[in-house]
């Protein structure tokens, strides 16, 4: 009964806006087939049954990312993501009691080493060498009890595919897919690492793979340096979007296991965790196993970012000279995902810089041939708090970023002065609908969209109303918001110039 009502309601909405023709497709019932429940500790589950193939996918989104970090421990959300593959008090160890003792000794050795290093110019080289040797010994002693990568091995030997995780400013997510007869095993594995993490091999991991990852993504990448670090550093001074998710090298070098444990205890709590499961599962089974294996996760009160990025009082600008071809980034401050103008930001970004007919591409790439790419997107570097509408330009050969900037700014100003056309706005809406439908396909894709929407906006249903909210955007909205955000005062520009080394 509810299904029919829902469809009728949607049909009415469709008639109202007059764009969406009615379909006989089954995706219309999708929203009503989605079940949800919340455990006493606050962990929220979203389940969609699809019995076509005996597999399922899940996405666990922890609403914690680098925006929650304070200076001194930047990068710690990402280090924790790595640690979540190291096992629990049961998985990955030969003797947890002895291992914990050895880890405590390792921590003491590290604290002594860190204190000596912190003396800077006064550091005694002999003392330092001795402490380094002691720490290495303690680290190796702790490793004796480790069964390396057992967590991943269990997942993979049961046929798990796509095992991975990622961290960003607003969230940390974990995902993989399993044959559907492993639902209970999955609940055990996932519940355990959320509730019972053991930060084994902490120092090896952060000084090794995590540091190498920073080198790869930021230090040795001209694009990464500018985009993932300097641009954010410049645009945001107060809120947690200031620093990159990968963290500063100096913080990676000095953070301790206690830092990570405290951060985990504070943030890996029920209300911050959303799990979406999609595939050949019974929702009742998911709930049964969730209660059995996820109930151990402690509850608590989620912390929201308290520092609000203050209003920007003038243009910010950075020119990086590096031995690499030029790049251009222009950012304008906008509000986060739950602001009523969010769909307007999306429409503006689309008209300006998504696709070959978008204004920036048509002008800078196709007409003037001064760029090989020029795109715009809303929501970098984050979604939840005051963030940016960003233009990314890749100049053509022998064109400077400054030249491209002039072209981009002229196009942006034209949008402010003349607004968008009815055809442009109609295209935005049509593309939004097609993209929404494309996003519903596949267990993995749907699980990620449901969990991410829930974690970011607070309601997974927003996934289904996004198109309607875009439908409601008017030409007046676009001109109003464009005039409001596209000001010199609200602008941050980071560009790089090529200098031969």
């Amino acid at each position, binding site marked *: 009964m509810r299904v029919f009502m829902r469809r009728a309601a949607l049909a009415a909405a469709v008639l109202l806006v007059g764009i969406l023709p009615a379909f006989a497709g089954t*995706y219309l019932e999708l929203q009503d087939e989605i079940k949800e429940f919340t455990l006493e500790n606050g962990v929220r589950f979203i389940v969609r049954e699809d019995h076509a193939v005996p597999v399922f996918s899940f996405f666990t989104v922890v609403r914690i990312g680098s925006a929650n970090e304070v200076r001194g421990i930047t990068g710690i959300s990402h280090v924790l993501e790595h640690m979540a593959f190291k096992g629990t008090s049961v998985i990955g160890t030969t003797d947890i009691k002895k291992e914990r003792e050895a880890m405590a000794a390792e921590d003491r050795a590290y604290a002594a080493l860190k204190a000596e290093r912190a003396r800077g110019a006064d550091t005694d080289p002999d003392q330092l060498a001795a402490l380094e040797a002691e720490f290495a010994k303690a680290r190796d002693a702790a490793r004796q009890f480790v069964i390396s990568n057992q967590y991943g091995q269990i997942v993979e030997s049961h046929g798990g595919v796509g095992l991975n995780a990622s961290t960003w400013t607003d969230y940390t997510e974990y995902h993989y897919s399993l044959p559907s007869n492993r639902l209970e095993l999955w609940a055990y594995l996932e519940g355990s690492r959320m509730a019972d993490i053991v930060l084994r091999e902490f120092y090896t991991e952060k000084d090794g793979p995590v540091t190498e990852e920073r080198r790869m993504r930021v230090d040795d990448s001209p694009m990464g340096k500018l985009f993932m670090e300097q641009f954010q550093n410049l645009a945001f001074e107060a809120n947690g979007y200031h620093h990159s998710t990968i963290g500063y090298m100096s913080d990676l070098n000095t953070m301790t296991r206690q830092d990570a444990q405290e951060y985990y205890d504070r943030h890996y709590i029920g209300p911050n965790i959303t799990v979406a499961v999609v595939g050949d599962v019974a929702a009742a089974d998911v709930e049964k196993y969730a209660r059995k294996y996820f109930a151990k996760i402690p509850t608590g009160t989620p912390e929201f970012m308290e520092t609000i990025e203050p209003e920007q009082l003038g243009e910010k600008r950075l020119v990086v000279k590096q031995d690499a071809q030029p790049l251009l980034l222009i950012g304008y401050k906008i509000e986060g995902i739950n602001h009523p103008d969010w769909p307007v930001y999306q429409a503006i970004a689309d008209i300006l810089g998504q696709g070959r*007919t978008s204004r920036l591409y048509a002008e800078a790439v196709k007409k003037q041939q001064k760029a090989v790419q020029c795109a715009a997107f809303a929501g970098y570097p984050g979604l939840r708090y005051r963030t940016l509408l960003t233009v990314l330009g890749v100049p*053509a050969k022998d064109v400077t970023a400054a030249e491209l900037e002039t072209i981009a700014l002229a196009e942006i100003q034209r949008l402010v002065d003349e607004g968008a056309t009815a055809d442009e706005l109609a295209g935005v809406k049509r593309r939004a609908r097609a993209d929404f439908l494309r996003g519903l396909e596949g267990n993995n894709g749907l699980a990620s969209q449901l969990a991410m929407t829930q974690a970011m906006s607070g309601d997974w249903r927003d996934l289904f109303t996004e198109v309607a909210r875009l439908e409601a955007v008017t030409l007046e909205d676009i001109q109003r918001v464009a005039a409001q955000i596209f000001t010199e005062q609200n602008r941050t520009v980071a560009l790089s110039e090529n200098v031969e080394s």
Partner: protein
Amino acid sequence: MMTTRMILKLLVAIGAIALAAGVASAKAPWEKIKIPELDTFEMPAYERVELPSGMVLYLAEDHFVPMIELSAQIMVGSIYEDADKVGLAAMAGSVLRTGGAGERSGDEIDSLVEARGMDLETWVGQTTGGAYLSCLTEDIDLGLALLADVLMRPRFADDKIELAKQMQKAAIARRNDEPLSIAMRELPKVLFGADHPLARHPEYASIAAVTRANLQEFHDAYFHPERMYLVVIGDFAADEMAGRIEAAFAGWPAAPAPLPADPEIPRLPRTVNVAAKDGLSQATVLLGHKGIRNDDPDYAAIQVAAEILGGGFNSRLFKEIRSNRGLAYSVGSSPGTGWRYPGAFLAYTMTRNDAVEAAAKGILGEIDKMLNEPVTEDELQAAKDLILNSEVFNYDTKREVLDRLVLFEMYGYAPDFLQTYQEAVKALTPAAMQAACQRVWKPAELSVLVVGTPSEFDGDLSTFGPVNQIDITIPAPKATLVIPEATAESLAQGKARMLKLRDRTGGKAFANVKGWHESSEMTVQTQMGALAITIDQTVQLPDHLRIVTKLPFGEQVQVVAGDQGWAVGMGQQKDLTAGEVAELRKAIDQETFGILRRVDELEFQALAPLEVGGKLCNPVVVEFDDEATIMYLDAETDLLVMVQSPATSPMTGSPVTQKVYVQGYQDLSGFTLPGTLKITHDDEDFADVTVKSFEVNPAVDPALFEK
């Protein structure tokens, strides 16, 4: 006597032993979780239809969302492009879509596609090309029409070719910015040789050489229905869709010629290579050699072995290099198996500079271990479990099922290839796997490629063999001169400049020229070293020419008498073709002396001033058969500084830009003419010329021009 207490003690002891035994054999918590039988599953329903044109369709209905997706694989690739036009195939792949098709311009297609939320893309990769369309069900007719247009009737509009060239040039300029892109570009060159079709990459010159006609020819040669496999999934009726597709692609002709043979994949001996880039904090380390095709009998063994060596979280490389030693974030291996070609067995990591040798040795050590010791039963079982338990994921989307069937059909694999593979995996033993590794993987033959900052390395890598430095400098683009439309003004100015040059070099004396004899010495740079040549040239106007070329190993005479021409060399005489005669006659009319003689009758166009060799020059262009010869005249002295013209390289036979630089002027028989010249081909030194003697209107024995 045993006291009660002792008995108790004993019982406790026995109990403890039993307990300990119980602990030892107890299952871990996750092992106690029951795994029910997996529900049976079936291949998704699909239809295979072969159209009369030879196009093969794989169709599967899916009505969940009102959308249709079409994905085409086409037997075309950059392996078929000319070696001096690298980039042509990729350019064809993108301009198919952007350059307009059928009745519509590229911009019109962009507008239609984006206004309706469609995706429409085309591409050509190394060994295949393809097209992709995704649209709402209601737009399928338009979508199919556009897809057929771009594949069958591309327009290759000039402005979009230029845009594609701009993008390729930008990519070339940026190709050394990211270390990983350096590594991925250089690796195939290390493995297969720099000129191999799977290794070569675009340069400014190869991009500039591509013309619209080349793109059209490439399309006409390779885009044909019998080479296309189309996977169609979505909200349609399968029986009706085949007919629609047939109608949309009606009239597409079959290929005029079969595909060229695939290039051979060589197995090169080990080389050790370093591509140096300053200021990197991390080095990319790659080890590789030629692998096997997937129909090799050891395919399954190698797949499983690669899983154990460097497949995932539980692999040996991941554990040893990343988890235990903390040397890397990125580390792993790929088995070296391929569907069409033998793949490349690879192991890789990215590590700090001062751990390069240590990491490379660590990786080689792990590979050696795979050859020297059988893996444990447990390890093998875990790898088998990984493959066998994830089998269902080979069937969880229609797209991957149908794509795989296309792959099998394109490269001649049986449709039940996967089932055979699963059986082979189940039957594997540690010994059989070790034998396969020994046969296929040869650690001593693995070439080494490192991208990094060598001054920071923990060793010079010579432990792996003699080290070859790879120069990653990007060859500079040739200065291209765009010749604008001639105007009355530029023509008048051009003529005026040439008249000045004629006055400076011989003036009225040119009018009395009936013929000339020139003797010069030329030193040509060849791969074998410098080659000294003497050239003796006799001209009798209007159309007689005799050239005697003396080489260290013999002499050749070429004679042109009107439309006739012949060559004598090595005791043999051979008639020249009309084309060869025409080419030789250029020496009479189209070289500097001939041009100066004819200033009155030719048209010259002045171009904007330009610096050549540090001198400001006034360029003047004269065209012969649409080919521009540009003379750069010194703005101060009015004398010739350089002459640029298209030519054919005698070394390679390919077209080059020839530049003749004047090194010094001489008074020759009443004319002021260049006495020493430097010739470059594509800006590389080709030859030096010294004029030994020059005589106007010499006495000539008529017998010289008789056979």
